[in-house]
C-alpha cells in the first residue's frame, strides 16, 4: 500500500516507529491514570474500559497493521480521524467538567451508599413554574 506513505509521514512513522510508539505510550499512560481515578471514584470500570478500548485501537492498529494494509489510504484516514476524535471527546467528557464528575459522585451516594438511609429531602424551596421543560 504505497498510497499510505503521506499519512505515514504525517504520523512520523517512517522516521521512527519507536518515536510514534513513545507518544502513544504517553497518551495511553495519562488516559489510564485519569480513567483509573474516575473509575475508582465512581466504583465503576466503565471509564477505564472505554479508555483501554481506544488505547488498544490507537496503539496496536498502526498503519502497518494488516487491517490497514489491505485497505485504501482514505479508509485509514477516516478511521484514524474518528479514533482521535473519539479520544478527544473522551478527554473532554471525563476531564474538563470536574463539577459534573463530582455531581455524579454525589448521585452515586444517593443511588447506592447513603449511610444514614434517610431519604427525606426538603422541597419547600422548589419553584413551581410552568414555562420551562426542566
Amino acid at each position: 500500500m504505497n498510497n499510505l506513505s503521506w499519512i505515514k509521514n504525517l504520523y512520523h512513522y517512517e522516521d521512527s516507529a519507536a518515536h510514534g510508539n513513545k507518544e502513544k505510550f504517553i497518551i495511553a499512560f495519562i488516559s489510564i491514570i485519569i480513567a483509573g481515578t474516575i473509575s475508582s471514584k465512581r466504583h465503576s470500570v466503565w471509564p477505564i474500559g472505554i479508555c483501554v478500548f481506544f488505547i488498544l485501537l490507537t496503539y496496536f492498529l498502526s498503519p502497518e497493521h494488516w487491517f490497514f494494509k489491505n485497505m485504501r489510504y482514505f479508509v485509514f484516514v477516516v478511521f484514524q480521524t474518528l479514533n482521535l476524535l473519539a479520544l478527544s471527546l473522551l478527554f473532554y467528557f471525563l476531564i474538563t467538567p470536574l463539577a459534573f464528575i463530582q455531581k455524579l459522585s454525589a448521585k452515586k451516594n444517593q443511588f447506592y451508599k447513603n449511610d444514614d438511609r434517610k431519604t427525606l429531602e426538603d422541597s419547600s424551596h422548589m419553584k413551581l413554574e410552568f414555562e420551562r421543560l426542566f
Partner: protein
Amino acid sequence: MKILGISCYYHDSAAALIEDGRIVAAAQEERFSRIKGDERFPALAIKYCLEQAQISIQDVDAIVFYEKPFLKFERILETFLNTAPKGIKSFLTAMPVWLQKKLNQKSMLKKEFNKNFSFLPKKIYFSQHHLSHAASTFFPSPYEKAAVLCIDGVGEWATTSAWLGEGADLKPIWEVKFPHSLGLLYATFTYYCGFKINSGEYKLMGLAPFGQPRFADLIKEELITLNEDGSFWLDTSYFGYIDDLTSTNKKFEKLFGRGPRHPEDNMDDFYKDVAASIQVVLNQAVLNLAKKIKVDTGVENLCMAGGVALNCVSNGLLAEKGIFKNIWIQPASGDAGGALGAALAIYYLHYKKQRDINPQDSMSGAYLGPTYQRQQIEKALKKNNLIFSTKSEKDLLEKCSQLLSENKILGWFQGRMEYGPRALGARSILAMATDPKMKSILNLKIKFRESFRPFAPIVKDEDYEKYFSLNLKNEYMLFTSQVKNTSLMPAITHMDFSARVQTVSRYKNERLHDLLTAFADKTGHGVLINTSFNVRGEPIVCTPEDAVACFINTDMDALAIEDFIVIKEDNPHIRRNKRWHEQFKLD
C-alpha cells in the same frame, strides 16, 4: 378561562378540560382507542373534551403537559451513568426513543395538535409530575386546607412528595427521590408474582389476603429500611429497574429462593405469602408517611394521589388509624389524573385564580366522560339485531331490580363515563352480592379473569354503616372496610372479611341510588356487586357499541343502557362469538 391538560407518552394517556376552574370533561385515551393503557397522544380524548365543552381547540387559553420531560431525561441519563456498564441493555432500549422523540416533546406535541386538529399551539406549558398529582387531589377536594401526600412509582425525580394546600395555593414540603420508591417496590413484587406492571398492582393487592405475611420481616431487613422520620430507603442492589429491563434480579430471586412466577401459571401459596408480605410493608410505609405529614402540617384533612393511593387496603388502614379526621383521594390517582392536575395547577398557581370549594368535592362523582344520545344507542342495538324495549325511569328500575333479585347479571350503562380506573356505576356490571356462587360465575364466565379476584360491593351511603365497619364516605371505591355480616354477602366478602366498598349518594348518582332502593325493597338488602363493564384485558366500555359487543359475547343476562333494556333470553337468535374476548391482550 379554558385550560386543556394532557398526560401521555408513558402509560394511560388522558385529557382533561377545565373552564374557570370547573372540571368540564376528563377521559382516558384507552376508552376511545380500545387499547388498554394506551400511552399515545390522547387525540380522541382531547376531541371528546372539546365536544363536551362545545368549543374548538382555538378557544382553549392554555395547553399544559403533566410533567417536565427534560427533568425526566436527566434522571434517566444519570441513572445510566451511575450504573454503567450494567445498564447497557436498558440504555440501548431507552435512548433511541428519548433522543428521537421524547426530547423533542414540545415540538412533538405541537405536531400532534397540528396533525389531529389542524392547529399549531403557540405555547405549551409544562407542569411537574408530582405537582400534577398534588393539584389533582387538593383542588377538587372539599377542603379549604389539607395536607397532600403523593406516592407513586416515579415522575421526574420525586417518588413521594408532601405538600400543604390552602385555598388556591399549594406549597411543597418534602420529597423522597428516585431510586427510593414505594411504587416501584410494589411494582417489583407485582412482576415477581406474575402480574403486569402498571396494570396488575390491584391483582397483587387482591391476592394478599390469601397469604401469610411471612416474608415481611425479610423485606424490611433486606430490601427496604423504614425510618422513623417517614422516609424509606431501598437497597437498590436487589432491584433490576435501575440497570436492567426487568424489575427483579438474581440477588432478589436468591433472597426469596425462587424466580418470578410465569404470568399464567397456577398461583401457589408461596406467591400468596409474598403478596401478603409486601402489602404489610407498604401499609407500614404509608402509615409512617402519613404520621410525618400530620406532624409537619398539623391539619385535620389529608388528600392523596399517585398510583400507590389506589391501594385500598393501605387507604383503609390509614382511615381506620384516625391519623387524619378526613381523607379525600383523587379517583383518577394514576398518571391519567395528571392531565386534570396539570390543568388545575396552572389555573390556580400560574394564573392565580380564586378557588370555589364544593363541600361535596368538585369531581362530579368522577362522571366526567362522554354520554350518548338516544339515537346513538338505538342505532347500536338495531345494528346488532337485538330485540329491546324502552322503559320509563320507574319501569326501568323495577325491571332491573327484578332481574337482579332473580340472580341475573346486569350490564349497567348509564350517563357519563367514569374518569379513572374504577367503574363507579356508569359503566358497570351489577349482580347479587348474597349468592355464594356469584364470584366464580362472574370471574370465569363474564370477566374471563383469575378466580381469586374479589368483587366490590355498592351500597347507598345511608345504609353503609349497616353493612360495613369503616365510618368514612367511600364514593370512589378507594378504601377497604370490614364486612359486618360476612355470611350474608359471600360474593363481595374477601378472604380477610374485607370489601372494597363504594357508597352511592343520590346527589351524585341518582339512578343507581334508586336502583339500590328498589333492589332493597325486593330482597331486604340494598347491596350489589359492582364490577367494571369489560372483560379481562379490555378497557372499560365507552360507547353503546362497546357495551353491546361485551353483552353479546359474554354470559351477561341483561343490559340496561340508558332507558333501553335488552334481555338475553328475548334474543335467542343472537350468536355469541366465544373467542371474542381473545382479541384483548391479557393484563
